């Protein structure tokens, strides 16, 4: 009985998240229309005149997601291919723990690294870059999600049976051709699922982005400018002294609800892809 009760805590947690986000967001949307929230191009909830268009925050988040994805997805996939197709056992035994360590470094450390190392580097090459910029944050978030892409892709590629590869080699294909035409297509569902999971992780990433990307809600596609992501906004509000019940307090729940819905959607999609398109080998 006690055991069952503790198993249900996970369900209570989910319900509590939905209830909390739902209740406060409901209060928020009684004062601000959903249309204005989702499609307004100006986000200024703390100063008069207030405006509640979430697009600048969403654009900032997407800038980070796209930037980090461009770094982590090709690198992660190539790393996985190298680890599973080319590398010796010894190389694997070096790279795997390094990936685990990179994945275990706290995000606040990555934020510090972006702020004090990567940003100065970027400013060396592009002096016009602002101190807080999306590029620097994208790079560290990319580093952060790289181990996840690499290890999930590695699992997916390794689960392709050796006999398929041998078939390719028997036809005289080079390892690159086997990878391109046999292994990667066979592991495709797992690979895509790993991309989706990594992107969802980048979407919800908080501390590195707060430290490195700035706090300027900015509807821009220029990665050298200061921006603000949804997560960084939530942190900014909670660092200040915001009384419960006010509309400023409710904005963090509305933004949090959007964040929750998007990441949950991506995680469900990743699971669905993995189950729906999995190629089953005997």
């Amino acid at each position: 009985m006690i055991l069952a009760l503790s198993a249900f805590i996970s369900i209570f947690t989910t319900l509590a998240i939905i209830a909390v986000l739902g209740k406060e967001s409901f209060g928020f949307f009684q004062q601000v229309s959903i249309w204005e929230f989702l499609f307004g191009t100006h986000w200024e909830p703390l100063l008069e005149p207030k405006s509640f268009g979430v697009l600048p925050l969403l654009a900032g988040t997407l800038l980070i997601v796209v930037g980090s994805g461009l770094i982590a997805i090709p690198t992660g996939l190539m790393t996985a291919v190298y680890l599973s197709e080319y590398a010796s056992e010894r190389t694997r035994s070096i790279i795997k723990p390094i990936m685990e360590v990179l994945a275990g470094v706290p995000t606040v450390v990555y934020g510090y690294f972006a702020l004090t190392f990567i940003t100065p580097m970027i400013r060396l090459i592009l002096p016009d870059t602002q101190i807080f910029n999306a590029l620097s944050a994208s790079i560290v978030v990319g580093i952060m999600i790289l181990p996840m892409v690499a290890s999930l892709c590695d699992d997916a590629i390794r689960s392709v049976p050796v006999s398929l590869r041998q078939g390719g080699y028997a036809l005289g294909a080079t390892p690159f051709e086997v990878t391109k035409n046999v292994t990667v297509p066979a592991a495709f569902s797992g690979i895509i699922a790993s991309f989706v999971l990594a992107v969802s992780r980048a979407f919800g990433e908080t501390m590195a982005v707060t430290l490195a990307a700035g706090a300027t809600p900015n509807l821009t596609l220029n990665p050298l400018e200061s921006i603000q992501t949804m997560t960084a906004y939530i942190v900014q509000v909670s660092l200040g002294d915001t009384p419960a019940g006010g509309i400023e307090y409710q904005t963090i729940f509305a933004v949090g609800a959007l964040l929750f819905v998007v990441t949950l959607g991506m995680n469900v999609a990743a699971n669905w892809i993995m189950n729906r398109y999995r190629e089953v080998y005997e």
Partner: protein
Amino acid sequence: MNNFKSNIEKRKRIESIFRTICKALTWTSLVILVVLLYHVAEQGFHRLSPDFLSNFPSRFPDKAGIKSALWGSIWLISLVFLISVPIGISSAIYLEEYENKGKLARFIEVNISNLAGVPSIVYGILGLAIFVRFFGLDRSLIAGAFTMSLLILPVIIIASREALRAVPQSIRHGAYALGATQWQTIYHHVLPAALPGILTGVILAMSRAIGETAPLIMIGALTYVAFVPESIMDPFATLPIQIFNWASRPQAAFEEVAAAGIIVLLVVLLTMNLAAVIIRNYAQRKYRW
């Protein structure tokens, strides 16, 4: 036959280019790790001293220390351990040994894997609304510990289930054959055999909890705490929060203080991960099926 042209040279060239790129990208992660660690060490090493560990935070970078944050982290992690480990392991036992098929189990399983993907800041929002405001725990250690426990529970449950699943059925059957009840079988045979795997998962979950920042900022863990917490209702700061606070200040001197804080945090994490590896190796030697 005469117009047959071999393309093997070109194919081999592509092959070797591809291989080189893959290799280079793979080793990039090692380079990144080395650069990261070197940068932090170079910035912060000279700020490390016994004083740094025994001083409270200060607005003067020379005097700033990490005592309250270190103790805050120790308090927090002990509470999180006490809350999340019993719940996590009992959930895993229930799901793996008692309720391992059927729609309900499937539903809980999907639910847990989705919870594992929820961004940590959403747990912070949950903690703020439920523990801080609704239960009126205020910005206390216990509110932080509950929030953090909810965050790492999915990690513990998933790891423990895998450890339990790895225990061969023959051990269970042997115990049943001797007339043991299901609970006796689990308590005396399955759980001890799965314990190393569970412990590894628990330690990894704890190191995640030590490094998490966002949910604690949400529930309002203070960044300036000039005392060591004495009860679970006291306000607190933790290592990552202190580092965040220092790193977000504009003065360059605080950058070095932040780096010193990061070194302390990384040493704590490294020790824990080392423990996990040792336990894993020990278990692999002790139990062999």
